[in-house]
């Protein structure tokens, strides 16, 4: 039988094998990989796959833009811990996925993107809607494949899922030519086992390295755990907590680590980095030992590397060997799965009284509380921090999932929404992708239909992907959208304020009436500009049976504090001005 000949989706059973089209095999393999839902957008080169969808139990969510499909798959993966799947056609369909793939790459999120490709005989001919998408995505995928025969589909899909979710997870793209979807072959799941002789996701440290780590821990007077996203990926929440409590070591969080260690835990200091708490950054600079748990010393958490934690020895527990000594030179690297490494270390870790160190950290908090906007005199203005703090107080008991976009509101969310549980904050950390929040929230809600899901998004980022409101309504998802509307690209404006002489070039936004926009989609809407209205609005949204969009009109020129300027030392922070502190200092 030739590739081009059409054939029934499944043929007669022959000793566990059956004759199927490449398209049929694709859906069969996705089902066998446990996929229940895919996010996609059809088009010419992927049509054979869409035609075969009718034989599958998999639910297809029709998105409004392929970027949305990738963010939804990403949000699905972050909320559930499973692999998210996005599907699109060749050419523009595939290139529209690029931003979402890069977002997943930078944050180590397991997604599989399936794209149609022109027929294999047309490849290289600049055919209609032909793009070399494996070439385009080569540096932003963990791995990618071009499939040109139906017989390669099964093994490729199995490998794609295995690569996406094992080791340090990441996005995998599978580009399938139209003739590979249409062609037929014998399908044999068992025979299509992954063959990856060079792929080794399961590394573990040497005994000598464990011993060195323990020696550093036991000799340390001022140790600090830096808790990153790897804790959640590894599922090591329990182990990190046990370790911190047993060894009496305080914990500082990265943005993507939030939720990995309970915010209310007495050892949790809060977030570090560019917009981290001042005392956390000071603690890092004072520490004599940093234990980096599944984090990668991103420039947003280290500030200037020359002055970063110069007093501290460093232990780096990390699954990706390429991260070792990339940004910060470490004394002991423990390369392996964080949970397994901690389980190995735990029995040998001695319980130590570190009250002196913890007391000194407490003193570092200094005037932070006074500078906190929650404690500043009410100016009659509504601040974003008020909205987020109120949202947190109203929804904190519900294991609410908050999905944020990128910018000022993202940092305020990180500062004021106190996450107790893993996978309750979904945000684009590494790539900083505006437009991420709404589609990622749709993915999260599809993954966790029982969970309360809030989108916290700026007025700029919302307009990048607001077309997905239609997807939200079409799928009948109860998602709450809080637009933190300050009429600016706020974070860019903040940089212009500090570093470009308040030249607000291209940052003021002309916005539509978001409430009327929501009305057009049949989504209930509210517009709030008074602090006293925030809690009633949040409660009204929660009580409403469908999705709600709340347009919070907040103070236009507010600034995220503290701030470590790019390239500055971590302890060199711009603080929120406080009339109380400044008056006291003057005296």
């Amino acid at each position: 039988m030739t590739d081009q000949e059409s054939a029934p989706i499944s043929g007669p059973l022959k000793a566990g094998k059956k004759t199927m089209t490449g398209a049929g095999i694709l859906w069969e393999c996705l089902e066998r990989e446990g996929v229940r839902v895919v996010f996609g957008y059809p088009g010419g080169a992927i049509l054979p796959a869409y035609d075969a969808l009718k034989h599958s139990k998999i639910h297809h969510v029709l998105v409004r833009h392929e970027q949305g499909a990738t963010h939804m798959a990403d949000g699905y993966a972050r909320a559930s811990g499973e692999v998210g799947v996005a599907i699109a056609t060749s050419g523009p369909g595939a290139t529209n996925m690029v931003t979402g793939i890069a977002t997943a790459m930078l944050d180590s999120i397991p997604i599989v993107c399936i794209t149609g490709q022109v027929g294999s005989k047309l490849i290289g001919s600049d055919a209609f809607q032909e793009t070399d998408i494996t070439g385009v995505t080569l540096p932003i995928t963990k791995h990618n494949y071009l499939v040109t025969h139906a017989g390669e589909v099964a093994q490729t899909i199995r490998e794609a899922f295995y690569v996406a979710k094992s080791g340090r997870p990441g996005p995998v793209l599978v580009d399938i030519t139209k003739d590979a979807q249409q062609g037929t072959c014998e399908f044999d799941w068992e025979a299509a086992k992954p063959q990856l002789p060079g792929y080794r996701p399961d590394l573990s440290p040497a005994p000598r390295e464990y011993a060195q780590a323990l020696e550093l821990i036991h000799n340390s007077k001022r140790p600090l755990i830096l808790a990153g996203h790897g804790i959640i990926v590894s599922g090591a929440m329990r182990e990190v907590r046990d370790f911190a409590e047993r060894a009496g070591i305080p914990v500082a969080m990265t943005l993507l680590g939030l939720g990995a260690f309970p915010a209310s835990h007495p050892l949790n200091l809060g977030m570090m980095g560019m917009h981290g708490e001042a005392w956390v950054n000071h603690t890092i600079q004072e520490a004599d030992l940093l234990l980096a748990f599944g984090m990668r010393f991103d420039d947003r958490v280290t500030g200037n590397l020359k002055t970063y934690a110069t007093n501290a020895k460093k232990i780096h527990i990390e699954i990706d060997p390429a991260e070792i000594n990339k940004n910060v030179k470490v004394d002991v690297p423990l390369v392996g799965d964080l949970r397994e490494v901690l389980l190995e270390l735990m029995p040998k870790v001695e319980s130590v009284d570190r009250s002196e160190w913890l007391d000194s950290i407490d003193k570092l908090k200094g005037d932070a509380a006074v500078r906190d906007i929650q404690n500043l005199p009410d100016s009659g203005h509504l601040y974003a921090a008020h909205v987020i703090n109120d949202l947190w107080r109203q929804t904190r008991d519900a294991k609410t999932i908050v999905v944020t976009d990128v910018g000022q509101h993202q940092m305020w969310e990180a500062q004021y929404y106190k996450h107790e549980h893993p996978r309750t904050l979904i945000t684009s950390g590494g790539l900083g992708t505006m437009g991420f929040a709404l589609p990622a929230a749709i993915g999260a809600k599809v993954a966790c239909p029982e969970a309360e899901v809030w989108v916290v998004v700026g007025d700029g980022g919302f307009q990048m992907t607001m077309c997905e409101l239609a997807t939200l309504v079409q799928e009948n998802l109860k998602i709450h959208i809080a637009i933190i509307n300050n009429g600016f690209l706020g974070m860019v404006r903040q940089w212009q304020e500090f570093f470009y002489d308040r030249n607000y070039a291209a940052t003021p936004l002309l916005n539509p009436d978001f409430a009327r926009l929501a009305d057009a989609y049949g989504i209930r809407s509210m517009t709030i500009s008074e602090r006293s209205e925030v809690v009633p609005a949040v409660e009204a949204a929660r009580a409403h049976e469908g999705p709600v969009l709340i347009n919070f009109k907040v103070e236009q020129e507010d600034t995220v504090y503290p701030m470590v300027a790019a390239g500055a030392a971590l302890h060199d922070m711009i603080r929120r001005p406080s009339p109380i502190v400044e008056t006291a200092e003057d005296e």
Partner: protein
Amino acid sequence: MLNTFMVYVENKPGVLTRVASLFRRRAFNIDSLTVGRTEKPEVSRMTITVDADHDQARRIEANLYKLVNVLLVENITNQPAIVRDLAMIRVAAAHDARSHVLQLASVFRARVVDVAPESLTIEITGAEDKIDGLLELLRPYGIMEMVRTGIVAMRRGSKSGEAMALTEYPSAETDAANGDVSYSV
């Protein structure tokens, strides 16, 4: 300093692009890259030289391992190895110059592979510095054209990297002797 890596990869389309793209993306400049078949049809072998310090060389190795199609990476910079480059040099050699050029070629154990009235083409194989040496001496006569393959390298002794690639992997202890920080690969 120049580091020399032997890289065993799956013999599949696009693998060279993945390796080359990695060096570009991580901002390492390849000095020389050769790729060819090995004794196993499913395995290709690259010899890559790149200017990098110790830490950078380690990161290059780790990043190469992250490529799914890479089977084995060995940094043989400080290991006993046979390293060979091949050059073809067309040098101006008319009349009285000709015998001098022939003598130089003979001293360097190079071969004359083409003779023309005004020039000789010399093929030389050897370590890079040997070829550089001959080039230096030929320059006064006038080098008209020159091409080099880039180096290929093989470890000395009976240890076969290839066998390791498909059976076992080097343990973390290999680095323990020189007191470096190490990770298991």
